[in-house]
């Protein structure tokens, strides 16, 4: 009995372990955010495009919005720019940019050249706001509901597909729940 049971149990155990651990679709760098369901960290930063203007997410309370973390040093952010512009044209939710560890002139040039999908772009020069949001790379995109709670975080470049599959249903249910 033992002779059969033991190897089979061991095999099944390893199979389950490997199915999870060796899954090619799993990004080992993707860490679930502890922020989900928690109040979004508040920030009040200057706008990349106009240093005199203050971007504060406290003012957005009551609105569902997207926070997109990017930087001009980030190639994948360039890739997602078209998707973000298309999303901005839909006008479903405001997209707030968080320009992470960047130079203002470079960021301004980027927005002029590639197009500007953002309702406002907060300039996080020293990365403190990004730390508060648990950012550890770019791009990262957060979804915040009307109560100011983070409800979803997407890591890596935004695509129209991801937007439709992951964001739109959550936005709809956040609006239903928040009404």
């Amino acid at each position, binding site marked *: 009995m033992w002779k059969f049971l033991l190897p089979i149990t061991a095999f099944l155990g390893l199979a389950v372990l490997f199915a999870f651990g060796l899954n090619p679709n799993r990004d080992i*760098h993707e*860490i*679930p955010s502890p922020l989900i369901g928690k109040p979004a960290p508040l920030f009040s930063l200057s706008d990349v495009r106009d240093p005199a203007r203050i971007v504060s997410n406290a003012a957005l309370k009551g609105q569902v919005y997207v926070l997109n973390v990017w*930087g001009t040093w980030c*190639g994948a952010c360039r890739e997602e720019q078209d998707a973000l512009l298309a999303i901005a044209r839909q006008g479903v939710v405001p997209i707030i940019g968080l320009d992470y*560890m960047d130079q203002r002139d470079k960021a301004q040039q980027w927005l002029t050249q590639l197009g500007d999908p953002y309702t406002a772009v907060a300039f996080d020069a020293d990365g403190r706001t990004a*730390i508060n949001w*648990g950012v550890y790379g770019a791009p990262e995109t957060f979804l915040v509901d009307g109560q100011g709670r983070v409800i979803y975080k997407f890591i890596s470049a935004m695509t129209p597909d991801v937007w439709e599959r992951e964001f739109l249903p959550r936005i709809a249910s956040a609006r239903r729940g928040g009404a």
Partner: protein
Amino acid sequence: MRCLRPAAASAVAARAAPAWRAARAAAAVGVLLTAAVLLAPSAATQAQAQAQAPARATPALDAYGQLRDPALQARFERITGQLRCLVCQNESIADSNVELAADLRRQVREMLLAGQSDQAIFKFMTDRYGEFVRFNPPLEAKTLLIWGAPFIMMVLGAAIVYRVVRQRSRLPLDDELPGSM
């Protein structure tokens, strides 16, 4: 695809960097070298000036960027050694050269100087990055399996050894086997 922070561009980022980036880097090095030759005298004095005025000596930090208070520095080293760098996940933020690690070290240093406790600092990090940042997770219901696994393995191994030894000891000795000689 994901991006690391700018100055983190070293070994880790090189993996994903397209060829043009390498080419551009090479070009940049070339330009820099040329500039260095042309501007040699001024560059040399600048480098000297930089060497003489260490980067971040402040009331709290010495010339090497260490906390002047040895007790705080010891706590700083212990804490940063126990926090995982999210970018190169098998390194602690004490060891990692990635810029995010530098930002997090700055954060730890500031919190220490503000008189915060180790627990407050760990909580700050786990609130933002999750339990995963801790190399040394606290023993609680969620982490019971992590802490218990070695003991479970040990008991399991001991049981197997016990069984095998007992079974073997019941076997007849080799020289008692029929036809063994």
